[in-house]
């Protein structure tokens, strides 16, 4: 018996001849097939659509088509997966073109193909799942970072507010009490002749202590929140702050800032003041620098702040951590966050001869 099925049919599909192998596979008798059935009648609906749209047009264009997959409907309703080669030739005996097909039983092959398809789909689904997991993880991480940033910003804001409140409280209540104390002391001083020598000495000491307390309180309150910042602005507040440091000694600061720098919203001025304050504290405390330079300038688009010291610099390992945003100290992290909140950029360059920090704040981010 032939190893494959043969079937010939006319252009309209009407079957002209079949071999015994095909009859055995399909379960039909020769009489039931020849001139009675059409090729298309052996096909499932999807198969017949494919036959009309792909198989027959291709056959008519090329004269031959190889290895097309179909599912044949057998007489008992079973489905036989086949591979089919077809050639179209004009038959002398038939007097018209005939389509000759060789049909191969593709049951095993189709099983493998289905398994392959299933495995591929499974793989694709798994890849899609992993991808989705990754996307989710990244999103979660971004959310966490964002909330950390918000928290830091909130923290900085809270600290600014708290310090402003404390400074005011010190100035208003403690300052007033001290003023009262000083007034009383001057009343006593008028009549100090009536006091013993010992009491007179104690009074003189009290007056001096009161003055010291008053000076200390004013300094602390001004460092907590320079009152000048709110009243006369960043320019005067920075000059006052720098003069204070220069007077106390330890580090000499050269401030470059044009007189017509102008005012900015209170929040921004506080931020800039805090950044400079933080940076100078670092220069002095960690950098052991004796000199530092602060330069502020603005164009129509940006505010530029440059701070340079002549200290020992930041160790490279620490610098890497700072640049990657991890493990920076609270001070630098705070600076970075303050800059980030204003959509600005912060660059640090550090060598053994000192550290330079460049900050750029876009003016557009500043609320008017």
């Amino acid at each position, binding site marked *: 018996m032939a190893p494959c099925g043969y079937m010939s049919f006319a252009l309209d599909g009407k079957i002209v001849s079949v071999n015994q192998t095909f009859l055995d596979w399909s379960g039909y008798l020769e009489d039931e097939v020849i001139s009675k059935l059409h090729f298309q009648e052996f096909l499932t609906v999807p198969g017949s*659509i494919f036959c009309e*749209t792909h198989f*027959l047009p291709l056959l008519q264009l090329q004269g031959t*088509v190889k290895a097309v997959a179909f599912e044949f409907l057998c007489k008992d309703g079973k489905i036989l997966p086949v591979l089919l080669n077809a050639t179209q030739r004009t038959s002398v005996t038939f007097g018209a073109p005939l389509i000759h097909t060789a049909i191969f039983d593709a049951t095993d092959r189709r099983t493998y193909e289905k398994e392959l398809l299933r495995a591929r789909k499974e793989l694709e689904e798994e890849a899609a799942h992993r991808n989705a997991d990754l996307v989710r993880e990244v999103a979660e991480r971004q959310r966490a970072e964002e909330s950390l940033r918000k928290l830091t910003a909130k923290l900085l804001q809270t600290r600014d507010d708290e310090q402003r409140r404390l400074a005011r409280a010190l100035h208003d209540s403690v300052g007033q009490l001290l003023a009262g104390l000083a007034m009383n002391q001057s009343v006593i001083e008028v009549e100090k002749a009536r006091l013993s020598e010992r009491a007179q000495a104690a009074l003189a000491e009290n007056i001096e202590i009161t003055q010291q307390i008053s000076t200390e309180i004013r300094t602390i309150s001004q460092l907590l929140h320079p009152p000048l910042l709110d009243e006369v602005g960043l320019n005067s507040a920075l000059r006052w702050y720098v003069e204070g440091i220069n007077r106390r000694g330890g580090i000499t600061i050269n401030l470059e800032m044009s007189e017509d720098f102008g005012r900015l919203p209170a929040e921004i001025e506080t931020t800039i003041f805090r950044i400079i304050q933080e940076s100078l504290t670092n220069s002095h405390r960690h950098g052991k620098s004796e000199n530092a330079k602060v330069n502020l300038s603005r164009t129509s688009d940006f505010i530029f702040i440059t701070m340079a010291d002549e200290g020992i610099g930041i160790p490279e390992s620490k610098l890497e951590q700072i640049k990657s945003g991890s493990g920076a100290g609270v001070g630098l992290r705070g600076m970075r966050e303050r800059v980030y909140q204003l959509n600005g950029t912060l660059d640090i360059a550090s060598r053994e001869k000192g550290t330079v920090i460049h900050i750029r704040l876009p003016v557009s981010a500043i609320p008017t």
Partner: protein
Amino acid sequence: MLFAHGYGCDQNMWRMVTPAFQENYRIVLFDHVGFGNSDLSSFDLIKHGTLQGYAQDVLDICRELELAKVIFVGHSVSSMIGVLAAIEAPDLFDKLILIGPSPRYINDEDYVGGFTKADIDGLLDFLDSNYLGWSQTMAPVIMQNPDRPELAEELANSFCRTDPEIAKHFAKVTFLSDNRDDLPKLKTPSIILQCDPDSIAPVCVGEYTHKHLTNSLLVMLNASGHCPHLSAPAETISAMRRFLEGSPSSREER
């Protein structure tokens, strides 16, 4: 004359028909995106998610080539694409020749399209397992020679090459489309060439289309199947000629 191939093939399917017209007409052939030598990068999942998107491509071709008084020849789904294009820009078109059109392939209440929804779902699975789909996506893997694509190329057919994924998408768009409501909107004169039997677009669908398409002729061909321009080019050509020359045979016209 602008020829639009149907689902499953490319512009090669017109090769037996176009020589008969090239003396008297300018012949314009094209491949739908995803078929033949089309530029696959112009495929847009959203635009080409409806037949309107393909109709837009037809209009783009007309405008790019500055075509006027177009005789549109569409096979199968491209018939409906032509109808949609001519509704959108009636001034561009002179006549439509529709070979085996169907405004809807799936049966619906009192409408017979020839297929059920399950049949069409089955087709999409079937396409997955077929040679034409396999040959281009799977052949390089089977050949174990991905750096020699020509080996895979030899396995594939030289005609009607398709991008399997786009072809599947086109099959879905085609067989799930419903353009019955669009038929009455067409003003351009048209002719429907109908085979008997045609298992993709049965005679009753051709009659339905003719009934709802104003200013249309229905011509029954002796040919059977869905591609008379391939299986019976002479008969197809003469039916087209009679329509274009304005002397339809009274025997065939209904």
